[in-house]
Every structure is written in structure tokens, then in C-alpha cells.
């Protein structure tokens, strides 16, 4: 009995095998890309806030240090969002009639909190702590981007596990001198990897990749 399939069918089989692999790869990479996309991670999008507070003006233009408002970033897990009193330090006198600041004045009068919307929010099963990162020379800019150029805050990193691990595996790629942690627009003196390796030794930075570092 003659063959059902002509010889050329072998080629079709091979092609379709390759085709299936390619298609699978394509689907996998589409899913992979969409999981990493800004849409899923929430990066680079604007968030509505009760007051149009601008880091561009306050931190950039006037050069107010991050710690003036984010007071606990050096000692605690949370960086702290400033209470109404901190705004009123200046706005009792400056722009004291501005309509943009009406919610701030209302909160000051009634004692009710201003409710800011979180921009960065890790899942609750992840433990994060600012103080250790600040002490070991990780700049705000490394994780949050050029805050001093943002009229409204946008998340600039994916905040996914692979992002954390990329730095935990190779801290020398990102570490900077402690004096420069709060600096925006920092440039390393010389090669980052060279400077970085020295700082990793000086600050005794470990590479923390065990699961229980972040999932505890």
C-alpha cells in the first residue's frame, strides 16, 4: 500500500512542530510581557490626590529635603506621609488663601485626616523596610526615580519580585555613598561598578536572597 502522506508531508510536520513551539513561545512571551507591563504593575500612571501637592515645586524648586516631610524614612519601615501640621508650618502664611489648599485648611480646622491615595503599594505578604535601604546607601532616586521632577507622583519601578532581587543579587550596581542617598540626579565618581564594589565592602552589604528576607 502506498504511503498516505507524500514525502513532502515530513516538511509540513517539521514546520508545524516548529510552528507550535514558536506559537507557544509567542503566547508565553505575550503573557510575560503583559505581566511586566505598566498596566499590570501600575507604573508610570497618574494618581488622583485630594490636594495637588507637587514634589516638583517643594522638593525640586524650593529644595526642601525629603526628611522634612518623610520624617521616619531613616528609622522605620514606613517613610511616613506628613500630617496636616507639616503643611501648615508654611501654608499658615504662604498661599494661605489658595483654593488649592482648601482641603488642607479644612483638615487643620476639623482635625480630620487628609486621605492621600497610595501610589506604591506592595502586597501585604511582602515585608519592606526603608531604614535598612537608606543605611546601606540605596538612594530614593534608585527606587522612586526623579521625584524632584514630578508634579504628581508616579511609580517608576515595577515593584515586582524580580526587581527587588535584581538589586539584592547585585547591590554594587546601585549603591551610592550615604551622603548622596537623598540627592536627586546623582552621578557616580567614575565607574559605578568599581565605586559600588568598594562601597559594598565598606558598608558590609550582604546579598539577601532567601525567601524569608521578604516573606516573613
Amino acid at each position, binding site marked *: 500500500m502506498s504511503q498516505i502522506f507524500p514525502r513532502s508531508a515530513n516538511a509540513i510536520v517539521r514546520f508545524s512542530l516548529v510552528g507550535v513551539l514558536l506559537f507557544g513561545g509567542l*503566547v*508565553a512571551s*505575550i*503573557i510575560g510581557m*503583559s*505581566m511586566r*507591563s505598566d*498596566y*499590570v504593575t501600575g507604573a508610570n500612571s497618574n494618581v488622583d490626590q485630594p490636594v495637588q501637592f507637587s514634589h516638583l515645586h517643594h522638593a525640586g524648586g*524650593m*529644595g*526642601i*529635603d525629603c*526628611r*522634612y516631610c518623610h*520624617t521616619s524614612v531613616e528609622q*522605620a*519601615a*514606613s517613610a*511616613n*506621609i506628613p*500630617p496636616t*501640621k*507639616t503643611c*501648615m*508650618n*508654611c501654608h*499658615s*502664611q*504662604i498661599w494661605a488663601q489658595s483654593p488649592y489648599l482648601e482641603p488642607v485648611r479644612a483638615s487643620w480646622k476639623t*482635625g*480630620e*485626616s487628609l*486621605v492621600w491615595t497610595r501610589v506604591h503599594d506592595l*502586597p*501585604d*505578604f511582602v515585608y519592606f523596610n526603608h531604614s535598612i535601604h537608606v543605611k546601606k546607601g540605596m538612594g530614593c532616586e534608585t527606587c522612586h526615580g526623579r521625584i524632584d521632577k514630578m508634579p504628581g507622583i508616579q511609580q517608576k519601578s515595577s515593584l515586582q519580585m524580580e526587581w527587588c532581587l535584581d538589586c539584592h543579587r547585585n547591590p554594587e550596581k546601585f549603591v551610592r555613598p550615604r551622603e548622596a542617598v537623598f540627592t536627586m540626579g546623582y552621578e557616580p565618581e567614575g565607574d559605578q561598578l568599581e565605586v559600588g564594589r568598594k562601597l559594598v565592602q565598606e558598608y558590609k552589604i550582604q546579598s539577601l536572597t532567601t525567601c524569608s528576607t521578604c516573606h516573613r
Partner: protein
Amino acid sequence: MAIALTHARTARRAVPPSRAALAVVLLSAALITGCRQDMHDTPRYEALEESDFFADKRAMRPIPEGTVARGNLREDDVYYTGKVDGEVVHTLPAQITVDKALLDRGQQRYNIYCAPCHSTLGDGNGTIVQRGYKRPASYHDPRLRNMGIGYFYDVITNGFGQMPDYSAQVAPADRWAIAAYIRALQLAQAGTIDDVPAADRGVLEGGAPAAAPEASHGGGAAHD
């Protein structure tokens, strides 16, 4: 939700069942991992989170009146008020030793919390004052130069006139560090060539331009 969109598209094109099955498996995998609820937002409070339970909606509770948090008993009047019998003290409390570390810390804290108004020089012309805030007196005013060091501690703790207090933002130890640094700033601005060690005078006299920027950063204060 991006995933929901892809789902709709596959359905419209009517792909063969096997591929549709594969797509469903992959999509449900994607949907499971893409779901951002349950464990992402567990019923425990994070710092500053809003609470439905308390009337003021704050999960972070204020300390009830009449209680003292551990380690916050403030018995030592000199250290916690900067005053003895209502008079400001003229020397630092015994717990504080003056060294470079204290002045460095003071400089850093001063530049964060005070310089926006009082300027890094202490002359009262900071960026916020330039934008319309009341201009404070210069620290180099003879009245403030002769004021006891406890006065600066007291102003940070309780405010002064139009200036609000900074007690919530600056811890007591840092208030003393700032007070010591302001004193150093005052001494630095009033310094004469006689205060410079003989060995270094040549540098200053030879290179006047080099001396000016150092003084204007207040950085020279620490080793005066």
C-alpha cells in the same frame, strides 16, 4: 483586565478547540496570577492605613491622655525643656558631649528642618522667606548671640511668634544637636583671624577666595 481583553479577542476569531483549550489554560493561569486581591490586601493594618473601626478613621492610634509611652518619661527638665526654673540654660545638659559627630548631626538636621527659612548661613533669608514667609531675625544678631543655648531648644520645642514648633519633626537629642550647631554658626560668623590655628593662617591670608565659600557653607564651623 488586560487579560480580559485578550480573552474577548480569542473568542471572536473562533480558533480550533485544541488551541482554544490551550488558550483557556494559559489565560486562567494568567488570570490566577494576575488577581491582585485576597492575599495582597489582608485584613491587617499598615502604617497610616484607613480604618473603618475607629471613629476618626485612623488605624494608628494616638496615645490616650495621661499615659506615658515606654522610654518617654520626661523627668529631666534641663534635657526636655532647656530651662531651669523658667530660665533658659546656658550650657548643654550633662548627657550631651560636644564633639564633631554632634556638630555634624546638628548641621545635617539644621539644613533639613531650619535652613528652608533661616538659610544655611543663619541670616534668616531662606528660600521660603524669599517666597513670602515672615523674615526671622538673623542668628548673628547680638541679642541671639548672647542668648543661652537652651533658648534654641525651647523655640524648636514650643515655637516662637509666627514660627510653628518642630517638636513632632525633631527628636530631643537632635534639638540639642541643632542648638549646638547654631552656636557654632554664630561663632563661625563672628570669627577673626586669631581664631584660626597659626599653621592654617597662611592659607586664609594667601587665598582669600578659598576662605569665603567655606564660610558661606557653614562647613567650617565644626572645627572652629
